[in-house]
Structures are given as structure tokens and as C-alpha cells.
């Protein structure tokens, strides 16, 4: 029996029992839709994770810490920084030393953490200004201000709490601005207890305002590490505090040329005894979480598809009962055994396939609806949506439903094939 005749016969058989075929197909539609939509939610979630991560900061950055548990020498000094730069695939290293200082301009003061950095690294790490420019070697005590950092200024003479003061100053246009390690500087109430010598403030200037970002650098204030060291040294001399000439950084971030190399660089650093953290570590964790959730969601969908599969088997077995005589007659009239098997398998697969196809269409509709409703409810305007159906999922959805059809049809088909022709035609 050739395939076209077989197909036509199968389609006719299904058509003959429209109502039951429709109900069985409906089961598959629901099952397929459930599984596709569920997986699409998982995928949408994973994609949302990724986008969020990309917004949060560069995936190619690795943060390095000194090993607090001791062991090998992991001091983040100049020598270490140079060695980091020589690791394969490392593009740039941003080393920072943090120091708490007071900045004053006009009647305003602010207590701020200043990051001393190597100016060469700024550009490589994507520092950009919205006003002014980046720091240059020639800027003596120049400062880069994070967009949000200027909110820290307040007028100490006002009764109003410093946090409640709304201060608007154009940092780039200030006539005279000073910076000092003296935390008492500019405060109206002076602590008279000790007669500790107080250092003189140093002239400073803001050369640029950094572009706003979700990154920590929005609140950061940056300064040439050499200038910072000089200020610290000078002030330490006045107060008589100890100053370690040997520069040790608090914070080191390494930029790797490619996301795929991040793990290798992290590994190299770990072997050398450092502790590291990168967004990619988190990404991996998030991905694993997403996978687990996807599996759970797919499992829920799979249950309904499983029910649909039972529906197909049931329909086909019923069909065999009804068609017992017909099958027997076919056998007596010379149909090959495989033809009977193929016929039943085809009918089952067709139920699966049609259900899958309609289910896929429905899934796209449901997915769109979810995204629209979700965007409204969560205020994710323009976001990429909660549900996401990539091409492979669509293809897998149809393929899977057909496979389910075939599997569900296998037992009935086998049964039809093994039916005794004699018993079948005797059934009067």
C-alpha cells in the first residue's frame, strides 16, 4: 500500500469520527499549549535575567580580593597589579584605594569616600562624562564626580538636618574647592577634646561629571591615585599618624577581553591565592536557577500533554474496537500487516501533529497576551516580555506532540496488527 493511499485512508478514518477526533485533538492542543507556554515563561525569565545582568554591569569584569584567610602573599600592591595585567586575555585593570575625605566649596561641605585610581584604566572601563572631561595627569588634585554623589553636599550652619537639605551646585563652576582628610573641617561645632594638629586643606577641582549608571560609579568620586597618596602623606605628617609609603589597593577590578575567558582568568587568580567574584559566577547561578524553574514549568506542561497522550491511546483503542471487523476484512483482502500498523500509527501521529500545530498557534497567542498583560501589570514597558517562544521551541513543540502521538498510537497499532482476521470477521 503506498503512502499517499495510507494517508488518505487515515485522514478519512479520523474525519469519519469527527467529534471524537476533535476532542482528542483538543486534548493535544491544551497539552501542547501548556508545555510551550510554560517553557516560554522559563525562557522569558532567563532572558530577563540576562538583560538585567547586562544592565547591572559588565559581564567581563572580575573583582579581585586579597585572601583574608592568609596563606600566600595576596597583598593588592603595585606588583600584584602589574602581574594581573600580564595574565592572558586581561584587557585592563582598575585598582582603587578608598579614602574618606571632606570636600568643601563655598558654604557647603560633604563627607565622601574618594577612590584613588590609575588614570590609564578609566577609559578601558567605560568611564564617560556627561559634563566636563575625564581626568588627565596634569590635573592637580582633580576630581571626577559620580552623577549621584553631589547630593552629599550640605550647609553645616543650617538648622535643617543634612539629609533633608536639597543642594544644587554646579560643581564644574566652583571658584574654590578644597579637600582634606580632616573630618572636622568646616563643621561649626568643634571637638575640643584632643589638641591634635589639624592638616591644612588642599585645593581641588571637579573636572567632569560621570554619566549616570546603575553601576557603583554613579556614587563614586575618582581621583588620581598619586594625588591621593600625596594628600594622605602630607596630612599624616601634620597629624603625626603613620603613613605606609607602600601603596596597597582596596579594590581591584579586572576587565577580560571576552565573557568566555572570564572563568579562565578567575581560575588563574584563584590558583595564585586571590579571591575573585564576577557577574559571570552569578550568571551561572542564575542560569541554573532558571533551568530548574524551566524544568518545573515544563513538568507541569508535560502532565497535561501526558493526559493528552492517554487520550490519544484511548481514542485509538476505541477505534480498534469499532473497526475490528474492518481490520479483519482488510487483512483477508490482502493488506499487509505493516500497512495496518502504519495506518494506526499515522492516525495517532496526525492527531498529535494537528493538535501540536494548533497548540503552537494558540501558544503564540497566549504568549502575546501574557506579555501584554504582564507589561501592564509589572510596568515593564518596552521590556522583552515574560514569555518568549524561540524557533527551536516552536519546532520542538510540534515535533514532541507528533512523537507523543506516535508513542500513544504504538500500542493500539500493534494490537490492530495482531488482531486475528478470523475473529475479526466472525464478529457479526
Amino acid at each position: 500500500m503506498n503512502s499517499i493511499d495510507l494517508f488518505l485512508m487515515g485522514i478519512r478514518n479520523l474525519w469519519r469520527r469527527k467529534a471524537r477526533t476533535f476532542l482528542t485533538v483538543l486534548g493535544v492542543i491544551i497539552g501542547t499549549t501548556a508545555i510551550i507556554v510554560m517553557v516560554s515563561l522559563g525562557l522569558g525569565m532567563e532572558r530577563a535575567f540576562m538583560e538585567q545582568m547586562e544592565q547591572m554591569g559588565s559581564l567581563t569584569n572580575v573583582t579581585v580580593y586579597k585572601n583574608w584567610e592568609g596563606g600566600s602573599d595576596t597583598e593588592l600592591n603595585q606588583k600584584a597589579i602589574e602581574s594581573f595585567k600580564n595574565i592572558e586575555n586581561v584587557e585592563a585593570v582598575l585598582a582603587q584605594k578608598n579614602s574618606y575625605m571632606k570636600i568643601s566649596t563655598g558654604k557647603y561641605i560633604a563627607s565622601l569616600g574618594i577612590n584613588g585610581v590609575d588614570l590609564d584604566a578609566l577609559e578601558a572601563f567605560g568611564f564617560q562624562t556627561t559634563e566636563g572631561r575625564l581626568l588627565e595627569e596634569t590635573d592637580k588634585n582633580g576630581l571626577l564626580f559620580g552623577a549621584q554623589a553631589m547630593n552629599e553636599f550640605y550647609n553645616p550652619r543650617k538648622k535643617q538636618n543634612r539629609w533633608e537639605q536639597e543642594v544644587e551646585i554646579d560643581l564644574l563652576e566652583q571658584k574654590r574647592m578644597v579637600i582634606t582628610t580632616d573630618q572636622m573641617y568646616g563643621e561649626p561645632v568643634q571637638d575640643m577634646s584632643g589638641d591634635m594638629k589639624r592638616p591644612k586643606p588642599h585645593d581641588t577641582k571637579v573636572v567632569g561629571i560621570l554619566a549616570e549608571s546603575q553601576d557603583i560609579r554613579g556614587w563614586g568620586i575618582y581621583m588620581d591615585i598619586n594625588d591621593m597618596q600625596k594628600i594622605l602623606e602630607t596630612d599624616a605628617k601634620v597629624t603625626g599618624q603613620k603613613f605606609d609609603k607602600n601603596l596597597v589597593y582596596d579594590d581591584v577590578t579586572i576587565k577580560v577581553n571576552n565573557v568566555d575567558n572570564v572563568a579562565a582568568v578567575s581560575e588563574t587568580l584563584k590558583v595564585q591565592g586571590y579571591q575573585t567574584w564576577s557577574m559571570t559566577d552569578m550568571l551561572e547561578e542564575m542560569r541554573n536557577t532558571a533551568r530548574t524553574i524551566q524544568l518545573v514549568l515544563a513538568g507541569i506542561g508535560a502532565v497535561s500533554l501526558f493526559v493528552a497522550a492517554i487520550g490519544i491511546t484511548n481514542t485509538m483503542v476505541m477505534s480498534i474496537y469499532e473497526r475490528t471487523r474492518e481490520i479483519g476484512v482488510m487483512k483477508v483482502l490482502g493488506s499487509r500487516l505493516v500497512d495496518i500498523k502504519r495506518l494506526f500509527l499515522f492516525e495517532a501521529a496526525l492527531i498529535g501533529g494537528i493538535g501540536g500545530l494548533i497548540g503552537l498557534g494558540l501558544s503564540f497567542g497566549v504568549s502575546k497576551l501574557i506579555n501584554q498583560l504582564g507589561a501592564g501589570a509589572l510596568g515593564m514597558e518596552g521590556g522583552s516580555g515574560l514569555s518568549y517562544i524561540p524557533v527551536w521551541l516552536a519546532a520542538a513543540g510540534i515535533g514532541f506532540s507528533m512523537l507523543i502521538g506516535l508513542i500513544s498510537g504504538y500500542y493500539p497499532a500493534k494490537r490492530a496488527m495482531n488482531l486475528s482476521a478470523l475473529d475479526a470477521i466472525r464478529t457479526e
Partner: protein
Amino acid sequence: MSLIEVKDIKKVYRLGSEKVHALRGVSFNIEAGEVCVILGKSGSGKSTLLNMMAGLEKPTKGSVKIKGEAVTKMSEKRLAIFRQKNVGFIFQSYNLMGALTALENVAMPLTFRGIGSKRRNAAAKKMLENVGLGDRVKHKPNQMSGGQQQRVGIARALVGKAEVVFADEPTGNLDSKTSAEVMKLMVDICKHNNQALVIVTHDGSVGQYADKIVSILDGEVQNIVVKGEKKHEQA
């Protein structure tokens, strides 16, 4: 070598602890193009015998050879192919496919052989004309009388030009006038195409169409009458 050789067929059914000897050692031959009527009253074992010959059931003992091949020893798979090539079958209750037209019903055995729709429809149409149903091609079985349905059944059995055609009580559901028409039609076409026709019946009047009459009683051959020869009494 005869076309069909039935040799010492025995069939025992078990009904609980009871044994039913449906056939107790039946032997006879059928020649090519011969019309053979297996005659006997109800319960004598005719259908059982026919089923063995068509390979639908295995005997307890003995063998049936068609064209030298032992159908009693064939696997289901081989039997299907063998039947497709060599055997046509006419049922008492017609057994037409209710969803299919007369033409499609008749073309069905050719479909199983993998013959394309054009050729098989042409052959089926011709066969329907031969049985006098040229104007009922598009009719469904439930739109036809019993006699017409059986003629469709005959066309279906003969369309493949099988060398052997089996018919189990083909006129059992028809009135005597229609029976006579149907019998004549069947015999005429088989004679014309040199097909052997094996008819099982309890109706003695069918004997008039036969070249050979095998009378069966209680699972044993009572006698075999060949037209033009005298009676062969069996012991």
C-alpha cells in the same frame, strides 16, 4: 499437481474440558479454474475447512497447499502477501466498508497492492460493470440492496484476478431469486477468467453451478462428485 491440495486436515476445538472435532481428516484437491462447492448442513465443519484453506486458521493436523505452497505453515506476514497476490474472498455478510463508495470498496484490494489510483479505479469500474453495477459506482453500501452489495463484494474479490476465490455462504443472506443471479454471475466471471472458485454452502441448489461437489458431514468428507464422472463414494 492440483491448484489446491487439502491433505488430511483435522481440527479440534477445546471448549473447556470438552473437545469438538470440527474436522476429522479431510482430503481433496481442486484444480485451476474449477468451481468447487463444499456442501453440508450447518455445523458440519464447512467454514472451518474454508478458513484453513484461506490460511485464516491453522489446522490441528494436516496441510493445505495452494500452488504448491503450504498455507498452513506460513507466518501471518507471508500469508498476508500470499493472499494479496493469490486469493480473493467473498463473505456471507458482504463486509463492505460503509464509509467507502462501491468503487472504492472494489478498488481496495488493489490499493493494498500499491497500485495507483488511476489504474485501480479503472479496473474497479470495469469490474463493477461486469457485475452489472456500472451505474452504482458512487453509491455507498447502505444505499444498495443486499444483492447489489454482494455483487460489489464479488467485484472486490475478483478485481485482483486472484487464482483462487473463496466464498463462505455467499448467498446466505439473499432470497432465492437473487441468490441464483449472484451465483451465476460469480461462476460466469470465474469461468471467464479461469479462476478457481471455492463455495461453501448448505444450499443444495448451489450444486448445479459446480464442477465438483464436496459433501461434508460431521467433519468428514461424505462423497465427492465431479461433473461428468460418476460418484466417488468414500469409505
